[in-house]
Each structure stands twice: as C-alpha cells, then as structure tokens.
C-alpha cells in the first residue's frame, strides 16, 4: 500500500519515492514515499520492527554497510538522486549526519571526538579553526560548559546523556544539512532526555531533523511532522498535531491510543 500525502508547499529537502528495502529475500520496507523539509522536525513512530530504522538508514545510505540489504525506489537530496551510480557516499554522509540509539563516542578524547569529522573532511585550515569548530559544536550541543575544562578526557568517560550530546556535537561539527536520529534518548534518563529534546528545539530550522522515537509524548513535544509506520509501510504522514488528535487512518488511531504496538 502506498500512501503519500501532499503537505504545505515548502521545498522538500529530502524526497523519497516508492522506497522498498529487502534484507536478502525478506522485504522490510514496502514503497514508502515522503517529503522531508528543513523547516520542521520530522518524527517516525510505529511499533517495533516496522522498518523505521531501516528507512532512516536509507537516507544516508548506511544500509550499504549491511551486505544483504538492497534498496529500490528513489531518494533525492536537494533533487539529486543519492542512489545513482557514481554518487559519492562519503560526501553524502557528511551532508546527512546520524546519531545512533546507543551513544557511540570513539575511544578518544572529547576534543578528538568532535574534531574527527572536520579533520577527515578537511574543514579546518589550522589549529585555531579546529578549536573554534569544536567549541561551536559543543556549544550548540549544549555540552560546552560541562566539558570545557576536560577536553582531553576520554569521551567514553562521560555520562550516557553527555555521551549522546557529544555524539550530536560530533555530527554537527561537519555542518550537515540533515541530522538523522534513531531513538537518541532510549538509553537516557528523563533529565538527559529533556536536555536532548531542548537541544533538538534549538537545532530546528538550521538542520532538517528526522527523529525515530517510541515515545508518543516525545514525538508530540519535539516534532511538527509525524510519519506512522506499520509492517513495513508508511500508513500516515502529516502534521504532528493532526496525527495525534485527528488521525485519518484506523491503524494510526489504534497505535496512538495504545491499542497495539
């Protein structure tokens, strides 16, 4: 089943058309079409195993790292087909950053974690530039005040919430256009979660943000657009307020009201 809903006339940063994903013979995603805009935070919700992560990973081609995964359909970033042959995947991932469910800082210093992307992409001409990028990224991620005196400490020595903000700082250090977040708060306590949600609010508008979440409240709090996935299809996509107060589909309603999932 393909469902595609026209939204307000903003330019789509990412537009996906009829995206299907297979793991070997098993189909995990069936013809998903969606437009994602920089103006909004977009939330993906749906029961476990419905394909949210799978779809998210098609957007920066992280599925390429899974040998059995195969993607069909078309995904355009600023109108450019990211699955066309000759596409520079490395460049794509610099433009479409990702934050994972479990914080995964590198076993390096806090400074080196944030400097990692700028270094490999050659964004800083000299040490002063790099210092500035690191500081700006940490500030945007709301971590600067907590770590400014211990930049040389290992990133893995931070608390879970701090680690996740470090990963966000790491992702925004290369100045991406899109940030994909796969359940970024699922390993965090309510206070750290609130901190990340606040951060998403601050980053909104500067980057196109897509967040996968299992928490309905979180989706309602941080997002303006919500897509509901079920059994490998996208059932409904619309304004977050509409999805939560006035869903068009029966399945969405059942899920929102907690009847299954």
């Amino acid at each position, binding site marked *: 089943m393909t469902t595609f809903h026209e939204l307000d006339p903003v330019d789509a940063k990412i537009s996906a058309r009829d995206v299907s994903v297979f793991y070997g013979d098993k189909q995990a995603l069936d013809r998903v079409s969606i437009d994602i805009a920089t103006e909004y935070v977009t939330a993906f919700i749906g029961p476990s195993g419905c394909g949210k992560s799978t779809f998210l990973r098609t957007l920066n081609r992280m599925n390429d790292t899974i040998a059995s995964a195969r993607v069909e359909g078309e995904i355009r970033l600023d109108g450019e087909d990211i699955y066309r042959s000759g596409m520079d995947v490395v460049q794509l991932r610099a433009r479409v950053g990702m934050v994972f469910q479990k914080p995964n*800082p*590198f076993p390096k210093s806090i400074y080196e974690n944030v400097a990692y992307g700028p270094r490999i992409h050659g964004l800083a001409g000299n040490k002063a530039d790099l210092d500035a990028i690191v500081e700006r990224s940490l500030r945007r991620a709301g971590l600067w005040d907590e770590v400014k005196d211990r930049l040389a400490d290992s990133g893995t020595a931070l608390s879970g919430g701090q680690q996740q903000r470090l990963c966000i700082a790491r992702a925004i250090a*290369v100045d991406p256009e899109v940030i994909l977040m796969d359940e970024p708060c699922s390993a965090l306590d309510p206070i750290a979660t609130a901190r990340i949600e606040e951060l998403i609010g601050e980053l909104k508008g500067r980057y196109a943000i897509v967040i996968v979440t299992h928490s309905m409240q979180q989706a309602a709090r941080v997002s303006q657009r919500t897509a509901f996935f079920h059994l490998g299809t996208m059932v409904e996509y619309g304004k977050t307020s509409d999805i939560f107060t006035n869903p068009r589909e029966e399945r969405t309603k059942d899920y929102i009201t907690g009847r299954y999932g």
Partner: protein
Amino acid sequence: MSPVIPLLLVLALGVVGWLVARARARTFRRSDPARRPHSLPGYHAWFVALCAGLPAGLFALVWSGASQGLVMASVLADPAARDLPAFGITRDAILAEARALATGQAEAAFHPLARALVPAFEHALRLYGGVGVTATLVLGFAGGAWAFLRLRPEFTARTQVERIVMGLLLGASLVAILTTFGIVASLLFETFRFFEFVSPLRFLFGTHWAPDPMAAVGPATGEAYGALPLFWGTLYIGAVIAMLVAIPLGLMSAIYLTQYASPALRRWVKPMLEILAGVPTVVYGYFAALTVAPAIRDAAKAIGIASASSESALAAGLVMGIMIIPFVSSMADDSIAAVPQAMRDGSLAMGATRYETIRRVLVPAALPGIVAGVMLAVSRAIGETMIVVMAAGATARLTANPFESMTTVTFQIVAMLTGEGSFDHPATLSAFALGMVLFLVTLALNFIALRVVKRFREAYD
C-alpha cells in the same frame, strides 16, 4: 623396577571391586524396595573401584621410581662393589651393565667387574620388586575393603565419586604447573653452578663469546662467556627483522580479513593463514637455509656488499617473520573484530571512508590487543630454534649488518648441549644460564601481553 606388573594388578583389583560393589548395591534395592538408595549402583561400583585402584596405583608409580635408589644403595653396600672406581663414566657404565645382565637385557659382560655385581643386583631387584608388588596389593585390598564396608543404601556414593573425580581433575591440571616449577628449579640449579665459574655481570654484559668445551677451567675461563652478542643476535633476528616482516603483513592481513574480505573468502583465508602456524619449524628452517639465504647472499653480492655470507641474520629473520605472521594476524583479527560495530558505524556515518575508519578508529581502539599479539609473537620468535640453527650461523657477532651471520641464544644452547664437553664444564652449564635468561624474558613478555589483553577485554565488556 618396572611399574607395569603392579599397575596391571591394580587394574584387575579395580575391576573386581567395581563388579562386587555393583552386585552388592543392587541387593539394596531388592532388600528394601520401599526406600530408594541414595545413589545408583554404578556410583557405588565406581566408589569402590577408585578407592581400591587410586592409592595403590599411585604407590606403584612412586615405588617404581623410589626403588631404583634403594636397589642401587643395596648393591653398593655389597662387598663386590668395593672394587668399583670412585666415580666417573666407567663406574656408571659398569653398574649399568651389571643391571642389564641381572634383568636379562644383556647376555655377555664387557667388563669383568660387572659380572661380579650381578648377584647383588638380582637379589636387590627381587627383594624390592617383591616388596613393591606386595605393598601395592595390600594397599589395593585395604582401600577396596574400606570402601566396600561403607556401602549402605543411604551411603552418598554419588557425592563421593564426584569429589574423587574433582580431585583427579585438579591433579591433572597441577601436573602442568608443577612441571613448570620443576623446569625452573632444574634450570636454576644448573644456572647457579654456571655462575660459580662465570660472574653474572660478565655473562650478561661481556661482549666476547667463545666457549671451548675442551679447555681446562681456570681463572680466565669467564672471559669467553660474554653473552651480549647472543642477546643482540636474538633480538636483532627475532624482535627486529622478524617483526619488520610480521607486524605489517600480519596487521594488513587482519585488516583485510575483518574489514574487506567477503565472509566466504574469510572462511577460506583465515584457516589457511592459521595453517602457517602449524607448519613444523624445521620445514621453515630448510626454506631459510636452502632457498632464502642463498638468494639473499647472491642479491647482496650483486649490489656490491662483499661481507654477505651464506648464513645471514636477514634470511633467518625474514623466514621467522613469515612464520609468526599468524600469531600477529590472529590476535589483531580478534581485537579488531572485538571493537563494537557501533564504532565503525559512527565513523562511517560521519562520512569517513573505510580506510579512514580503520586507521583512525578501529586500529587505535584495537591497539592494546594488537600490541599484546606482537609481544606474544616476539616471545615466540626469540625462543625459536630450528630456523636460526639452520640459517643464522654460529658466529657470535655484535653487528647491525643483516647480511652477516649471527648467532642466537637458542642456537648456542643447542651447540653447548650437543658438544663434547662433560656435563659439569662451564661450556655445557652455560646452556642452562642462557635458557634461564630466555625463560625469564619470554615469561615477562607473555605476562605483560596477557595483562594488556585482559585490561582491553574489560574495556568493552
């Protein structure tokens, strides 16, 4: 005193005990069908068999060793032994011959004195053999009877057998450990004897190595025992040349196998690489001596290095490096594979290429494991004997020229022990001192490596 006959007797006793005990245990169930015995008949049977067999068997083994000394003592107390030379090789030869005659292993005596000693030997052997067999049998019967009398329906045979089995397993694992201690003790003993001739300082730091097993021992003896050139040769071949080969190749193949190779290819290549570790080192030795060394010499001569010899440190080191590639690569492989997938994904999602991910994230994260692998490989390389015996040469030289022949600690151990020197000559004893140094160095390397690996494991668990 051969332990074969007593051990067979013990075995028979055990079997009898097993059968009798099982028959007895079966009657428990019949006599009182209402109460279930604590253990199955098989456990009663094993309990009795083990009690009968174990102590008696152990005694038989110990006695077979201890009785040798007793036999010898009683033979030497015999009047016929008074004519024996005081010590040395002849005395031992006569005694061995008399013994062979007495046990029927030899027909004719080469030495007249040997024949005179035969009756004494026969008597002693008969006496102590008899004592041994009798004592073994008594012990076996006593153990079996004691166990048999304890059999009751409520007897906890199952628990007891479990305890005995645990003891056996413990004993088995102690054998390896005790053997290590035995090795150290014997090495230590001989090493101290060596240091009576040569001062440890001169041995460790002297630069002149030319032991002569035939030379008379005098105050100047120590001057020929400066082992520094050997240590240098060992480290130069095993820790420098071999590692220059093994570290890059091992690391690169580990990276290829973990990060680039398809699973199908990995399934083939990894075991093949590990087969390298199973090739007998003497085969590598041939390869080094017959193929690599001449090729290197010719190549060196061709580019004008006149000192190149047909035995060279380079040949031995290169081949040794190839030999230890699997040690480096399998440890590196394990520790790279142990870096969480999330690290890799995190780096790739930042837009890093695969190679950047490997170089900047995976290898640094796996470094402790890789270092540990290298240390194990070094300890393996410096203890390696066959390749250097066949390809490195015998000349003790303090040189950095890899085309010259060089000698190593292991080579000299072999040379000193297979030389003509008598067993208490410093030349022979030096082999033990060298062995001791080698043992301590490899022990330290392994110890550090294991500590590093353990810390590394904890970091990710």
